[in-house]
C-alpha cells in the first residue's frame, strides 16, 4: 500500500528516502521547497487529513534541523511522517498554516524552542511557553540546561557526596598502587 503511494508521489515529487517502520507507520524525506505541495497532495488526494504534530529535532553534527510533519490517514489507519532537513543557520521554513488551522501553534512553538522562523505564520513571534526568554532557544542541542540552572537558580547548601573509589583507596590502600 505504502509502496503504491510512493509510486504515485514519485511522479510529482523527489522523495529522497522512505523507511517503512511497520504496517501502520512510515517515514519519508522530501526537499524543503516541495513540502507544501506534497502535504497538500497527501491531504487532498491521499487521505492524510489529520496532522498529528509538527516537530523539529536538532542534528547539530550535520548543521541541520530535521522537521517532522506527522500525518494520519483515517481510512487506511496509516501514519506517515514527512521529514524535511533544513539548514541550522538562519533556519527558516514555509508556513503551512493555510493547510491546517492548528499548524500555526506548532510553528509558534518551533520558533520559540528552536529559533526556526516561519515568516508567514501568524503570531509566530509571540511568546508561547516561555516569557521574557533572552537566551538561546532552549531545545537546541547546544543549549546546556544544567549550566543555565546553575547560573540562574540557586541550590540549597548541605549536599556533598563521596566517590567510593577514592574513599576505598584512602582507607584501604593509601600507599599501594599508583
Amino acid at each position, binding site marked *: 500500500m505504502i509502496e503504491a503511494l510512493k509510486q504515485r508521489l514519485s511522479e510529482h515529487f523527489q522523495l529522497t528516502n522512505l523507511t517503512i517502520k511497520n504496517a501502520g507507520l512510515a517515514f519519508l524525506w522530501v526537499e524543503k521547497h516541495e513540502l507544501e505541495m506534497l502535504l497538500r497532495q497527501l*491531504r487532498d488526494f491521499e487521505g492524510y487529513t489529520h496532522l*498529528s504534530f509538527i516537530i523539529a529535532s536538532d542534528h547539530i553534527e550535520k548543521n541541520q534541523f530535521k522537521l517532522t510533519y506527522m500525518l494520519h490517514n483515517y481510512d487506511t489507519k496509516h501514519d506517515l511522517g514527512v521529514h524535511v532537513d533544513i539548514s541550522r543557520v538562519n533556519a527558516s521554513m514555509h508556513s503551512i498554516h493555510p493547510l491546517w*488551522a*492548528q499548524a500555526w501553534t506548532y510553528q509558534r512553538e518551533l520558533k520559540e524552542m528552536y529559533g526556526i522562523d516561519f515568516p508567514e505564520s501568524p*503570531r509566530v513571534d509571540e511568546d508561547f511557553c516561555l516569557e521574557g526568554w533572552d537566551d538561546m532557544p532552549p531545545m537546541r542541542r547546544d543549549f546546556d*540546561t544544567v549550566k543555565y540552572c546553575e547560573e540562574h537558580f540557586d541550590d540549597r547548601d548541605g549536599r556533598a557526596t563521596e566517590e567510593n573509589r577514592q574513599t576505598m583507596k584512602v582507607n584501604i590502600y593509601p600507599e599501594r598502587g599508583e
Partner: protein
Amino acid sequence: MNLTHDFSPTPEVDLASGKYVKIWHGPQHPGITGNMSLELTLCGDEIVNCKTHVGYLHRGFEKLMERRTYIQNFPLVCRIAVPEPTFNEYLYSAGIEDLAGIEVPELAKWLRCLNLELMRLGSFLMWLGGASGAFGMSTVYQWTVTHRDYILDLFEEMTGARIYHMYISPGGVRAPLPDGFKDRCLMVMKKVEKLLYEVETTVLNNAVFKKRAIGLGVISSDMVDAYGVTGPNQRAAGYARDTRKDSPYLVYEQLDFDVITATGSDAFDRTIVRYQEMHQCVSLIRQMLDRMPTDGAFHTPTPNVLHWKIPAGETYVKAECTRGEYGYYIETDGSEYVRRVHIRGPSYTHAIAVMEKLVIGANIADVAGLMVSLHTYPPEIER
C-alpha cells in the same frame, strides 16, 4: 477542507471606545482547567476575541529527557500529564520497546491495559466532577472525586502510589497484581456504576445543564480535521474514530467494545459520549479481570539499564487517552540517551486553537463550561 484559523477579531476592537473590555481568565481562576489563561475581549458579556496563553507549567520535559538515560526517563514521563500519568508510561515504554526490539510478556499486556482503563475511568470521573462543577452542580463534584479516590486506592495497591504510579516500565510492568485485587476492583466497579446512574439522573437529565450545554461550543465537522480534533470531541461530531479500534494495541483486539459517537458535537453531546465511555470502561475492566491470565512473566529482562544503548531509529506510538490521540515520537541515535522525544497531547490543539475558535460569541459565564467540555490538561500542552 480549507478551513483556516481566524486571527483577527470579528469587529475591530477599539478598547478606548469603552465598548469593549479585556479580561484575563486565569491562570488563577477557579473556572479554568489547570494552570493556563485566556485573554478575553468582551463586548458586554459576549466574547469577541480570545487569545490563549499557555506555558505556566512548562518544565522542558523534552529537553530533560534528552539528558537522562532510558531508565531514568521512566519515572519522569508520568509527570507530563498529571491527572492521567499512565498513558505516558505506556507510550514511552512502548516506544522504547519498539526501538529496542523487546517483546512484552502476555500478562504484562493485560496488566498494562487494565492499568490504562482504570486510569481512563479515574480521569473521566475527575472530569465529570469538573464538568458538573462548572455548570453549577458541585455536589456531583464531591461524589465523583471521591469515587476517583476509590480508584486511586486500587492504584495504590497495584502500583505503590496514588498519582505517579511508575508501574509500566520498559519491558513490562513492575509487579504482578496483589492477592485479592480482582474482588476489590469489582467492588469499586459496582460503586462506580451505581454512581454513574445517579449522575445520569442528576446531571444529564438536569434542566439547567441541558439549557446551558446544548448548543454550546459546536465543533463543526469541517473543523475536526482542520484542527486535528481527536478523541471524544471528535466522536461527538459523528466520527467513529478510536485508536483502540483503528490500530489496536495491547489486548484491545481481544476485548468487546464499540466506538461511541454522537451527532450534536456540542458540550452536551461531548458529555454524553464521555458518560457512555465511562460505562464502556467499567465493562472493559470487568472483561479484563475475567479473562486475564493469573500468572506468568510480567517483565522481559532489559539489558543492564545503567548503560543501555538503543540502536538508532525513530518511531511514533500512540494510544487513545481520555482526551484523544496521545502519542510519543521517539528518535534514538545509538547512544545511551534518547535523541528526541516529542509528546503529542490532544490538549495541545483542543486548548489553544480550538478553544480560541469556539469561545468567540460565547457568554463569559460559559467559558468554564466550554473549556471543561473540551477536556484539556494544560501540563501536556506545554510539557
